[in-house]
């Protein structure tokens, strides 16, 4: 309700149709995130099932993952969650320049996380000879899950870049900014998934 009154306050007359369409989209988008979450959960189930199938973990011949590097990389991703939060807040309060800077920072941090992940994959594959297809259930679960997550981050970075272009073109106003809300929700979702993946692959 407060969102609706804000939208009206900013623009005087924001049409009812838009407000309700936005409510529908928000709900639809949240449900999409729920089903995406089930997709991750199923693969996480598969990982835990295989991990506990009595072969020991990590399987013989494979080193434990490097926690320190991944931890720093996680900090980068969580930092991007914070900047995205501030981007949305600033947009809501009409601070356009701050919004843009925070959005750009989010993109840079997201890309940084992907770079870190690429470095880690590179190290595993070429230095430790641990590959997706050649290291049994370890490669299957680690590369599939983190790869799926990386794809999500990649799509997120692309989407945020689109947001930058759209915002410069004046697509979003103080009353109509569902695209930014959706982007923020998605980005936080990707963050939360990473908390789980980091815990079960690196800490467990």
């Amino acid at each position, binding site marked *: 309700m407060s969102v609706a009154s804000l939208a009206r306050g900013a623009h005087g007359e924001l049409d009812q149709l838009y407000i309700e369409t936005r409510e529908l989209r928000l709900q639809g988008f949240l449900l999409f995130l729920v*089903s995406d979450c089930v997709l991750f959960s199923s693969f996480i*189930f598969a990982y835990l099932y295989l991990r506990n199938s009595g072969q020991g973990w990590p399987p013989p011949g494979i080193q434990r993952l490097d926690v320190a590097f991944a931890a720093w990389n996680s900090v980068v991703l969580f930092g991007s969650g914070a900047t995205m939060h501030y981007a949305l807040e600033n947009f809501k309060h009409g601070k356009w320049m701050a919004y843009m800077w925070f959005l750009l920072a989010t993109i840079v941090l997201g890309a940084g996380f992907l770079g870190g992940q690429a470095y880690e994959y590179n190290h595993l594959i070429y230095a430790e000879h641990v590959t997706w297809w050649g290291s049994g*259930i370890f490669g299957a679960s680690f590369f599939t899950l983190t790869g799926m997550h990386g794809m999500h981050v990649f799509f997120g970075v692309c989407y945020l870049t689109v947001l930058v272009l759209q915002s410069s073109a004046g697509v979003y106003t103080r009353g109509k900014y569902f695209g930014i809300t959706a982007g923020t929700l998605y980005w936080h979702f990707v963050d939360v998934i990473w908390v789980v993946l980091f815990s079960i692959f690196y800490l467990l």
Partner: protein
Amino acid sequence: MAVAAVHAGGIADHIHPEPQGFVRRYVFSLDHKIIGIQYIITAFVFFMLAGLLAEAIRTQLLNPGGGFVANGTYNEIYSIHGSTMVWLVTIPLLTGGFGNLVFPIMIGARDVAFPWLNMLSFWIFPVSGLMLFSSFLLGAPTAGWMEYPPVSLQGAAGTSMWCAAIFLVGVSSTMTGINFVVTILKMRAPGMTFTRMPLFVWGQFATAPLLMIATTALAAALAALFIERQFGVPFFDPAKGGSPVMWQHMFWFYSHPAVYIMILPAFGIISEVLPTFARKPIFGYKLIAFSSMSIALLGFMVWAHHMFTSGLAPFLQLPFMILTYVIGVPTGIKIFSWTATLFRGKIHYTTAMLFAIGFIALFTIGGITGIFLAAIPFDLHVHGTYFIVAHLHYVLVGGSLMGIFAGMYYWFPKMSGRLLNETLGKLHFWLFFIGFNLTFLPMHWLGMEGMPREVATYDPQFTFWNRFESFASYLMTFAILIFFFNAIWSIRNGKRAGANPWGARTLEWQIPSPPNYYNFKHVPTVYGLPYDFSTPLPYKGLDEELTDSPPVPAGAH
């Protein structure tokens, strides 16, 4: 809150511009009713193909030594028969088909929440169907519709095609699920509270979350199988450290709820047809509604009852057995409510009503054998035999498909403006009902005596009953041909139906047949349940629906 969200003059009252041209109207239509009909027609085409495969199976089984098709081909045939009936016929008909066709009208909406997404959901469906059937060209899957590894890992290239096809049709289901949940939560007409929703809408409301959640779990399993087959990344191959039992967990975590995806909307259809033709309020409205929701929830907790022979620890088996019994309770409540609705009713024996009553009888048998199968000792005895085949066909044909036929006879006039021929309809019903029972009832004892399912040849001691079943199955097929003839003939030559040929009380019958693209001229206000036949209709604002006046959207911009 939910009621407050439905404002007059808001999106519930918004009228899309009228679509122009054949393509916009009938091909890439955004109208939920047209999309529903597209689903129904497409699914019935796949139904015919699956029926041909079924008759190939029965013809092979005329003789203990087979001989109609090669043994390997037989495996492909039953795998595609099962996959088609589940994913391309029953689920699309009950959700995308009947769901789209009537539930938005039943809640007083002008369309679903996301019409564009709805169109996309539909168009993915025939594409994935073609992919599934094209797997015959590559060597179709041979491990049944469950595709257990390691057999599915060794299957020909068509198995990967199968994975991709089912994955895609799952994406379509997931989008439909999201669309329906949002539509029911947000698009109800003023006064259409949850406890005033017709029971068909409750059926869809219980099913849609299953479509959204369970189907995604299956998508993960299919993706893993695909990856393993194409890239050699081990998930399920025990030789590489994977686990074939893990597939069974992932598959049944979807596929048990999938049974409810295939039966809850059919429950909804029955709950509309029975009170209409018994001219009595449905008995236990809230019981039926809430038992649907509890079945949907419990459905996620029983999957391992399919795996009692897969080496599950006994302390894990026991809760799955008990929870499966628990699901029998809400199901029993429904059967009790329907029977009580019939009791002392003024019953009109239309074809739709015959199918609904047939549904109760056959589904009860399927439900009871389900309770047998939940008992671990009994399951160990009949696992993988024809007893399972009998059970699942009583539930999915005697249940879901009878429900679909009831829905076809009931809503065909709303789709086309004409009634299906009742004489042909009754012939269809009786031949189908008799043919079905003669085909599948003997499978119970064949299974108890140990005839294994999914095998191209069998022990000669089973010859008599197998021949008997095969001939009975031809009778069933003949009955279905009568139905197809009836449907095609009646579109042009059927009796004109008028708005409300059955004297039904839900909203879709208060507007013309077929409805206008905007459904309602004014969005109605709802004052009560639709099932009380002794009172006036509980709606306001429908006075002009059957006149020539133009639509007047309060909130048109």
